């Protein structure tokens, strides 16, 4: 913007006293102007003119955030009751529509539990920032619910999940190999998000949140495109973001796997009618195991030993590799990026087209200091990279290990990790519904159920 004036300086319009003024003042760098607030003194008005106050429209009242928290708790408790006791898909659906409207379209998707993870991380690593109680609660409450009753948060409180849930029209089944390997990504994303938040670089979860733009009815063009693509894919691959991207989902999954209570497909004992088998759009129903086939062999035992031994190896290799890639990872930090750019191409320092460079040059900060700061950030990435890499290695190894552990199962049940507690499967279960068409030609089964 300074350029605007510089460009206008050799004005052809000479008989203008303004020009003289420009000459006097253009030479003063803009920064200086800030301190000289009273270049022109406040006039002494002859009339009764009162100097108006600058308007300061208020933000949303802070206590409203406690209302958000209250609603979150209410929604989660209600869903818990609907999932465990009432067993009603229809009601869960309506609660989720409410959440979508409130947390999504009304509250514009901020703050959400998914993003709160980064606020918490930042507050732990940055002394200048303290996380507010509500944000902390938004992070913790869904996890505690997951630990108690499974992922009810995903079912009916998370606007990101609900918007995808509502657009499911014809879900296709995904092969386990595809699901499991894509399922690695949320963990990697989680690690990256923590690393970037801890280094104060960026909140990548928020930045690449595909749906928040839809809630706000406006975002950068590519984010809108991404959001719409997710929804289009979501018509056929149910909840793609939740299953293959969401980093908070990864945490919920871990909690939910060990939950105390959980949604069960049948209200009583499973009669193995297989009706629910294809009801889950998320492939989250585990089938009864085939005793003959599903048994750990000697080979599997050695594989287990091998994978277990692989854990430290993968952790080390992962740590080494990711820490080595600190150069790439840290270049997302604007200071590191700028320092790299200016050191590699010093001629750019004269580039007045690039706003960042121009602002840096006129800030009076030397490149030396910038480089020093950038190096400190890089070191953080190199150090943090070890943890991130070890975490990724551990996740890979555990996923492999999980594939050679065989569990006996005699009924159809929800996979506690993958199940979103949406309740669809419950509608398919004939148990407790004697008039269900399934019993038409097998009346003896009714008694059993």
């Amino acid at each position, binding site marked *: 913007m300074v350029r605007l004036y510089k460009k206008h300086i050799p004005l052809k319009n000479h008989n203008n006293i303004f020009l003289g003024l420009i000459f006097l003042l253009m030479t003063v760098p803009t920064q200086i102007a800030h301190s000289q607030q009273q270049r022109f003194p406040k006039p002494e008005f002859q009339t009764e003119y009162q100097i108006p106050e600058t308007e300061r429209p208020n933000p949303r009242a802070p206590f409203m955030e406690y209302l958000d928290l209250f609603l979150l708790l209410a929604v989660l408790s209600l869903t818990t009751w609907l999932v465990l006791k009432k067993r009603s898909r229809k009601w869960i659906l309506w609660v989720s529509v409410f959440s979508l409207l409130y947390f999504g379209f009304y509250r514009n998707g901020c703050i959400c539990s998914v993003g709160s993870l980064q606020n918490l991380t930042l507050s732990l690593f940055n002394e200048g920032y303290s996380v507010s109680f509500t944000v902390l609660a938004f992070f913790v409450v869904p996890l505690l619910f997951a630990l108690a009753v499974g992922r009810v948060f995903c079912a009916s409180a998370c606007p990101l999940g609900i918007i995808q849930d509502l657009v499911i029209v014809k879900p296709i089944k995904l092969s386990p190999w595809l699901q499991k390997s894509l399922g690695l990504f949320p963990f990697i994303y989680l690690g990256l998000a923590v690393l970037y938040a801890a280094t104060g670089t960026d909140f990548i979860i928020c930045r690449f949140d595909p749906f928040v733009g839809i809630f706000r009815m406006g975002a950068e063009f590519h984010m809108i495109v991404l959001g719409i693509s997710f929804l289009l894919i979501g018509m056929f691959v149910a909840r793609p973001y939740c299953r293959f991207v969401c980093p908070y989902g990864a945490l919920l999954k871990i909690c939910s796997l060990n939950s105390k209570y959980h949604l069960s497909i049948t209200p009583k004992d499973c009669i193995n009618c297989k009706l629910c088998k294809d009801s889950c759009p998320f492939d989250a129903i585990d089938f009864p195991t085939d005793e003959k086939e599903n048994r750990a062999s000697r080979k599997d035992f050695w594989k287990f030993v091998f994978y277990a031994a692989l854990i430290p190896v993968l952790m080390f290799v992962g740590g080494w590799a990711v820490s080595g890639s600190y*150069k790439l990872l840290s270049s997302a930090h604007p200071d590191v990026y700028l320092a790299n750019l200016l050191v590699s191409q010093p001629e750019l320092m004269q580039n007045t087209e690039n706003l960042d460079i121009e602002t840096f040059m006129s800030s009076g*900060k030397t490149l030396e200091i910038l480089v020093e700061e950038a190096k400190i950030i890089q070191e953080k990435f190199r150090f943090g990279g070890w943890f991130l890499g070890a975490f990724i290695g551990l996740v890979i190894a555990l996923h492999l290990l999980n594939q050679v552990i065989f569990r006996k199962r005699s009924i159809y049940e929800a996979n506690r990790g993958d199940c979103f507690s949406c309740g669809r499967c419950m509608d398919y279960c004939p148990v407790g519904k004697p008039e269900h068409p399934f019993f038409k030609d097998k009346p003896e089964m009714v008694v059993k159920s």
Partner: protein
Amino acid sequence: MLNLDFEQQMNETEKIKRARQIAIIAGVFTAFVGVLLLLNYLQIKKSDPLNSLVLEKLVERLSSEPNNQHFVEEIRQVDLLMRKAYFTSLWQVRTGAYLMLFGAIVLVLSLRVYYSLRFAIDQPSADQIKEKKKRQLTQRWIGFSGALVIILAIMSAFFTMNHLKNYEPKKMLVHSKSDDESIEKVEIVSIRTTEKETDTVIITESTDVEVKQPEVAITQQPKVVVFNEETVKKNHNAFRGSWGNAVSSSTNLPTSWDGATGKNILWKTELPIHGYNSPVIWNEKLFLSSANTSKRVVYCYDRNSGKLLWEREVNNIQGSPATQPKTTEDTGLAAPTLTVDGEKAFAIFGNGDIIAFDLNGNRVWAINLGVPDNHYGHSSSLLTWEKKLFIQYDTHKGSKVMALSTETGKTIWETVRTNEVSWASPILAKIDGKFQLIMLANPNLSGYDITTGKQLWSVDCMSGEVGPSPVYGGGLVYATNEYARMVAVNPKTGEKVWEDNYYLPEVSSPAYHNGYIYIATTFAVVACFEATTGKLLWEFEAKNSFYSSPMIAEGKVWVFDTGGKAYIFESGGESKLISSPELGEKVFSTPVFADGRVYIRGIKHLFCIGVN
């Protein structure tokens, strides 16, 4: 369906048909709105109506023909059109987004109905692949994916360059200086013209400036700011001039002026807050500081015009005390003089705050050294050389000398001193081809190595509350203090060459020139001694006492008494008063010289004296 009669089945197919129709309509509608939105986006992106080139061109043309009504009309029309285009597109986007959302909701609902009716799950599918096979496949793919991630990380480790690693600060040139300097040139021209010429002449001058612009563009290459002996000699960059040695290389200085009539006073500007420090100069900029108990400020003036270029309040420094230490009125919180290293100006205040600004007033670094325990107030000025900022920090709670990095403010070295609290400032003297930091306090006069901070020599020779700074000349260091003595010390051997106690200054520091020592005392006497022997050569009774220190410039001795009367003597063994002009304002600080001008800070104003 398991149990549907025919009629119901008809109903079902009807419903399916409806749902499909609605879905198609909603789909087409949504896609249509989407395409419109996309087109709108592309169009706005292509021709940003608020930064319209057409409008800019028109305005440019208008400025060359300001009376052309046709242009004016056209601009107004285009402006209106552009604003309309912008706000209409905003409205379109908002409305379009809502329409699209509506369409999408209908589409999803109808599709759901359609699919749920058509593909209701009634029979479970059969398993095709065996569990074991699935698991094997899964393991393989997890392995692949994991390997992919790790390989990508390793590849990025090997194939991304880290330019920062090879970065050497030496290569780096001080940026943006040239740019500023070129602007300064323009500034001088324009200011002079506005001062001297009428409006019409400005035009020719400004075209002149325009012609000069290409030249300016050439000098916009980065260049190193030269901070060496030559440039320091040219600039009065510290208390008592270059290296604090009371000698200026300036010439063509005026010897007569009158503050009352304004004769030879080129400009004077009021200083809003008081301070006892003297100005310092780097090229066209003059720096000084002021402080009261509520704020501390650094000012930068254009020394040609007296225009305030910037003022910066010194605050928000970590460790800086909330309440200011008590000082006496004749010292205050801004007694120490600033120093400049060509890139940055450094200031220290009586509360221990020390701050560096670049010459454009951007804060570079700031620290607090801890509040100095000093019953009058800290008054030792700053000196800089070889990227180090030297601070003599003699307090009741212990004394030290430190060198801070001029770039970062970090301590490079710090040496503990054993002397009492003092008020003198350090000087730099070239001894055996190497600069030494020389400081005076009670009881010792000592020299320090500037690279390591090691004390090189020390002579116990002083007593009392030491105010005057030492001076170096002719191979000897001269130190003096009221109620004590004046001594000449050979810094190489540490021996006292002579000692005398006839005339002694209290605040004002001595000056050396061509074998003569000059002092100015609180009892209003200027005296000259033979430097090698200490013999009193002449004395001169002035009107008022001296706080300001004598300076040597153009072969003359310049000194201001506290009443604002200046005494200009011919330097030499005989008392030859050239003139004694009046400033008309009390003076406590030391004059500053820069090509043909004398700058002096009075109690209220800053003066620029030169032949006009």
